C-alpha cells in the first residue's frame, strides 16, 4: 500500500496538468466575463471527439489535431460571447442577475452542443490513444503520452500566465476584469476583450480535449463529468485565479490517483466533494483566491 504512494503521486501530477488546463479556461471565463460556463466540459468533449475524426480521416496525430480544435473552439467561444452573452449583459439590470442568467444560458448551450455531438459521433467510446509506450522514470512506470500531455499543459499554463501578466493585451484583459467601465474609458475595447477571453477559455478546453484523448478514449457522454471536475478545481483554486486553478488541478489529479489506487475509483467524485466542502468552510474563496 504505502510503497504505491510515490508512483500514484507522480501519475496524479501528470493527470492534474490537464485538469489544470481545463480549469484555467473556466476561471478565465468567470474571472473576466463573469460567466460560470457550465458548457466548458462540453467544449473539451467536442475537442476530443473531433480529434477522433481528424485522426481517422486525415491520419494526423492528436497534437496536430489540437492545433485545429483549439482555434475552432476559440471561434465558437468568441462568437458566443459576441452575440449571446453580450446581448444578455445589455438586458440584465444588475451584475448578480447577469451571472444567474448567464449560468442558465450556458446550460441551454450545453444541451445544444450535447445534441450536436450525439448526432455526429454517437454514444460509444472512440479509440484515439496515441504514444502509449511505457517509459521508466525514477522507478515509476509511466506512459509517454502522459508525459507529453503534461509538458504541453504546463507550457500552455506558463504561457497564459506570462501573457496575462506581462503583455499589453494581458494588461487590458486584467483591467477589463477589474473595472470594465474605467477600462473602457482608458481606451480598451471591453467587448472585444470579453469575447477574446471567452474564446481563450474555450481554446484551452479545445486543447485539453485532444490531450486527454491521447491518454483515455473520449466519448460524447464525458462532457458533463469534465465540467464537474473543472468546477471543483476552479472553486478549490479560487474563482478567477489562473495560477490557483493550475495548482488545484494538480492537487485534484493527485487525489484522483490516490483514491483510485488505494481505495476505489467510484469514490473519486465523492472525495473531491468532501475536499471542496471542507475547503469552502475553512476558506470560502479557495486556495489562491482574493479575499
Amino acid at each position, binding site marked *: 500500500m504505502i510503497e504505491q504512494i510515490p508512483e500514484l503521486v507522480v501519475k496524479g501530477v501528470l493527470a492534474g496538468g490537464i485538469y489544470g488546463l481545463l480549469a484555467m479556461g473556466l476561471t478565465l471565463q468567470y474571472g473576466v466575463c463573469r460567466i460560470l460556463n457550465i458548457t466548458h466540459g462540453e467544449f473539451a468533449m467536442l475537442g476530443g471527439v473531433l480529434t477522433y475524426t481528424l485522426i481517422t480521416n486525415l491520419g494526423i496525430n492528436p497534437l496536430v489535431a489540437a492545433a485545429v480544435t483549439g482555434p475552432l473552439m476559440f471561434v465558437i467561444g468568441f462568437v458566443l460571447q459576441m452575440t449571446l452573452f453580450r446581448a444578455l449583459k445589455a438586458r440584465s439590470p444588475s451584475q448578480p442577475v447577469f451571472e444567474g442568467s448567464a*449560468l*442558465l444560458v450556458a446550460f441551454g448551450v450545453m444541451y445544444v452542443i450535447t445534441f450536436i455531438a450525439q448526432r455526429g459521433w454517437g454514444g460509444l467510446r472512440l479509440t484515439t490513444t496515441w504514444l502509449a509506450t511505457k517509459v521508466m522514470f525514477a522507478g515509476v512506470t509511466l506512459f509517454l503520452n502522459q508525459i507529453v500531455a503534461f509538458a504541453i499543459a504546463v507550457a500552455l499554463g506558463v504561457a497564459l500566465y506570462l501573457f496575462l501578466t506581462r503583455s499589453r493585451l494581458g494588461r487590458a484583459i486584467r483591467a477589463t476584469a477589474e473595472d470594465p467601465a474605467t477600462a473602457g474609458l482608458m481606451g480598451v475595447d471591453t467587448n472585444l476583450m470579453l469575447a477574446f477571453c471567452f474564446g481563450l477559455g474555450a481554446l484551452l478546453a479545445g486543447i485539453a480535449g485532444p490531450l486527454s484523448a491521447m491518454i483515455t478514449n473520449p466519448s460524447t457522454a464525458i462532457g458533463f463529468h469534465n465540467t464537474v471536475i473543472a468546477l471543483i478545481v476552479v472553486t478549490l483554486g479560487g474563482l478567477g485565479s489562473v495560477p490557483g486553478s493550475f495548482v488545484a488541478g494538480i492537487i485534484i489529479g493527485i487525489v484522483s490517483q490516490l483514491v483510485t489506487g488505494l481505495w476505489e475509483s467510484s469514490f473519486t467524485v465523492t472525495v473531491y466533494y468532501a475536499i471542496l466542502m471542507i475547503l469552502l468552510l475553512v476558506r470560502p474563496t479557495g486556495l489562491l483566491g482574493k479575499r
Partner: protein
Amino acid sequence: MGVVQLLTTNRKLLRWVFLALVLALIVTLPLYGGRYHTSVLSFVLVYVVLAVTWAMFSGTTGYMSLAPAAFFGLGVYSMAILQHTLPFPIVMVVGGIVSFAFALLIGLVTLRLKGIYFAIFTFGLVVFLSELVQHLETRLRNTHGWAIIPMNTTMILYVALGLVVVTMLAVYFIRRSRYGLAMLSIGGNEEAAGHMGVNTTMVKVLSFAISSVFMGVAGVIGATQLIYINTAVAFSTIYSFMPILMAVFGGMGTLYGPVAGAVVFAYLDTMIRNEFPRYFLLIFGIVLVAVILFLPNGIAGLMPMLQERLRGLKARLRKGGQTEQHANT
C-alpha cells in the same frame, strides 16, 4: 346577463371561479381523459410543486439553488427503497423528512457561501449524491436501478393535486408572513436585512429546508410515474433546470407565475419527448436560451412590455399623422 356583469366587474370573483373550474377539470380528468393523460397531468403537477418551491426560496432570497434534482432524487429513492415495506402515505412523509434533514445539513454547511459559490455548491451536490447513491447501490445490492410498481393513476393524480394545494397554501402564507418579508429583504440587501434584526442565517437555512420538503415529497409522487429508475434518472439535472426555467418563464414575482410556467413547459416537455424524441436536447436548449434572453421577467413581465411598445407605437403614429397634417397646411 347578471352573472356576466358580476364576473366582468369583480375580478376577485372571476379568479375564484377560474380556480374552481381548473380544479374541477383536474378532478374529473380521469373520467374521460384516459390513463395516459391522467399520468401526464400528474407529472405536470409534480413540476408545479418543484417550480413553486424553487421560486419560493431562490426567487425571493436571490440565492440560486441548482439542487432541486438532489431533493427530488432523494424522494424518488425513498419510494424505490421503501415501496414494498411501507404504505404510500408514510413513504411520502419519509421522503419529505429525508429531504428536510439533508437540506438542513447542507444549509448549515453552506450558509457562509455567497452568490455564485452557492450555485456551484448546489450544482455539485446533485452529482455528489448521484455518485454516492450509485456506489452504495452497487455495494449493497450488486444491481443497478430499481423497478417501481405502477400505482393507480387516478389515485396518484389526486395525491399530486393534494400536494399542489398544500404547497400553494404554504407558499401563500409564507409570502404573506413576516418570515416571507424577511426572505425578500435578504434578496434585496442581505447586509441591511441583518442590521434590521433579521436572523438571515436562520431564515435562509429554514426556507431552503422547507422548500426541499415539498421537492422530496414531489419526488416520491414523481417516482410512481417512472417505471424504472436509477441514479441517472432520479438525479437528472433536468429536474434542477426545468423548475428554474418554469419559474423564470412564468415570472417569479407572483404566486401564479411559476404555476403557469410549469404547466406550459411540462406539457411542452412531454410533447417534444413524444413527437421529436431525437431532438429533445436541441429544442430544450434553444427554448431555455430564448426564454432567458427574451423573457427575463417571464410572461408576467411580457404584458407590461407589450403595452409599453404598443403605446410607443401609437404615439409615434399619432405624431406621424400630425407632421403630415403640418405638411399639408
